[in-house]
């Protein structure tokens, strides 16, 4: 049962993963999904191939990221097809990467929520001394972890020359990735993107959707809250009016009836209290019947007490045990016992007997 459930869950998880990977695309000459399929499906994320943009870097002596973002926005205002990425603060300066996309991207943009330059994710996936050579058909470029990247050509025609140019140590691993081999590297790099990078790379289409929709969505939310409050108020006012009308309709007969109801409660309480007291009264007179039992046993007593349903006799008899047996034999007596040690005093035995009287009530009292 558990293994079957696990299989089902694994199957569902594989399906979700496949669907997600279908929506992650690599925009090179054609649009290749992370499953290796070619298609034009709307994607969550499009990695823009290095051949599609020009990259430049500018260093700004600005420490505040927010201020720098405003400056960059001013610089790129009115210019379409420019992605930017603000780097971390180093020596009180920040490096901003500008990725300038061709006119074709502006007129026919890739359908995806995020647009991410390929060189950024490739660099993030590399180790400090690694250099990757990524090539496809007649295009090839080199990239290092620092983000430095260079198209092959001119003086840079090998990874070692690129290392020297980019300031990467010469002894290190060179990775040669051809065609879709680069997908695994890019996928690893995606996981290393900072949250602020994700925000920088929100695609123009998604930005325009957000900028177009936030006003109507906000208006709908505010209107919904207002309508909800209005509906609640209307319901409460209506319900209140209905209750008042219902109470009025019951008429003046209710007040005396409520008074009578309270009287019933008071009378029932009074009855319960009186009954409790009368039922709890334990009769005391039967202790004189106990006294006669002592005399029948040939005994006498000097003290006869009653306390909380128990009778205590302090007396003398030729045989204290005989007296106790006589008392214990009575049907209305329970737990008859000596309360202290029996002492011999001449031909008499001195005793203290304690017993409990049962089944007596005032209704059964004698004259």
């Amino acid at each position, binding site marked *: 049962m558990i293994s079957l459930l696990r299989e089902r869950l694994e199957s569902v998880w594989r399906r979700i993963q496949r669907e997600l990977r279908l929506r992650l695309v690599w925009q090179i000459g054609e649009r290749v999904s992370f499953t290796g399929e070619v298609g034009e499906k709307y994607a969550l994320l499009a990695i823009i191939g290095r051949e599609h943009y020009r990259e430049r870097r500018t260093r700004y002596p600005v420490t505040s990221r927010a201020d720098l973002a*405003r400056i960059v926005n001013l610089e790129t205002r009115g210019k379409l097809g420019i992605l930017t990425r603000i780097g971390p603060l180093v020596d009180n300066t920040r490096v901003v990467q500008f990725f300038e996309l061709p006119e074709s991207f502006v007129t026919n943009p890739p359908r995806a929520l995020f647009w991410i330059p390929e060189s950024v994710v490739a660099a993030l996936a590399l180790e400090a001394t690694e250099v990757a050579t990524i090539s496809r058909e007649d295009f090839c470029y080199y990239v290092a972890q620092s983000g430095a990247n260079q198209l092959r050509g001119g003086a840079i025609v090998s990874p070692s020359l690129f290392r020297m140019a980019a300031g990467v140590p010469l002894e290190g691993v060179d990775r040669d990735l051809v065609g879709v081999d680069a997908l695994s590297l890019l996928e690893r790099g995606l996981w290393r993107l900072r949250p602020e990078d994700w925000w920088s790379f929100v695609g123009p289409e998604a930005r325009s959707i957000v900028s177009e929709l936030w006003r109507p969505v906000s208006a709908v939310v505010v209107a919904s*809250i207002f309508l909800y*409050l209005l509906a*609640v*108020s209307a319901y*409460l*006012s209506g*319900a*209140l009016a209905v*209750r*008042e009308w*219902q*109470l009025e309709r*019951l008429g003046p*007969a*209710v007040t005396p*009836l*409520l008074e*009578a*109801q309270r*009287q*019933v409660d*008071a*009378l*029932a309480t*009074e*009855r319960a*209290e*009186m*009954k*409790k*007291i*009368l039922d*709890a*009264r*334990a*009769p*005391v*007179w039967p*202790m*004189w019947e106990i*006294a006669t039992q002592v*005399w029948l046993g040939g005994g*006498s*007593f*000097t*003290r*006869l*007490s*009653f*306390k*909380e349903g128990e009778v205590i006799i302090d*007396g*003398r008899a030729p045989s204290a045990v005989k007296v106790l047996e006589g008392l214990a034999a009575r049907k209305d007596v329970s737990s008859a016992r000596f309360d202290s040690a029996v002492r011999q005093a001449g031909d008499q035995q001195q005793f203290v007997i304690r017993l409990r009287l049962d089944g007596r009530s*005032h209704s059964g*009292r004698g*004259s």
Partner: protein
Amino acid sequence: MDADRKRTLIGLLLALVALRFGVLPWLEMQADVRERLEVLTNRLDRSAGVVMNRNAITQAVSRLELANKADRSSFALLEGHEGSRLAAQQRVTDIAAKQSVVIEGFEWVLDSPADGKGMPFVRGRIFFKGDMRRMAFLLGDLETQMPNMTVREASHTFENPVYGSGEYRASLMLVADFHFRRKGAP
């Protein structure tokens, strides 16, 4: 940029003002109405209940009045603890006098709490002295003639060992609660 910021701040300020002076008082008003509605609903339920049980309530009043009438005679209707102490002492003294038993001491040891539940009472400790037979009759009389009395302790001591129903001098210490109905109680 400054204009944008100003606009955002003004929007935020307006939203906060609307929340503070519009939405919050509205919600408080709704809470008040909800409470009133709850009170009215409870009152309506109770009213509907009594109207529906009109006959049963009327019958219950008569039945309980009748049932309580007999028991009420056992408990005197008095102003308070002071009155109850006086009434109990007079009654006990009368009964003791009839049996020619002397009251050697009469002390009040406890009053029921003023705000306590149940029927109020006063607790007394009484010391009697007299003939043993008279003492036995006294106890019987007290129990039969004072149904509002609950004996908590009764202790007889005799000057000489008692061998039968002859003439013996005896003392009795009686601790008892005397219950009463308080005037004006519901």
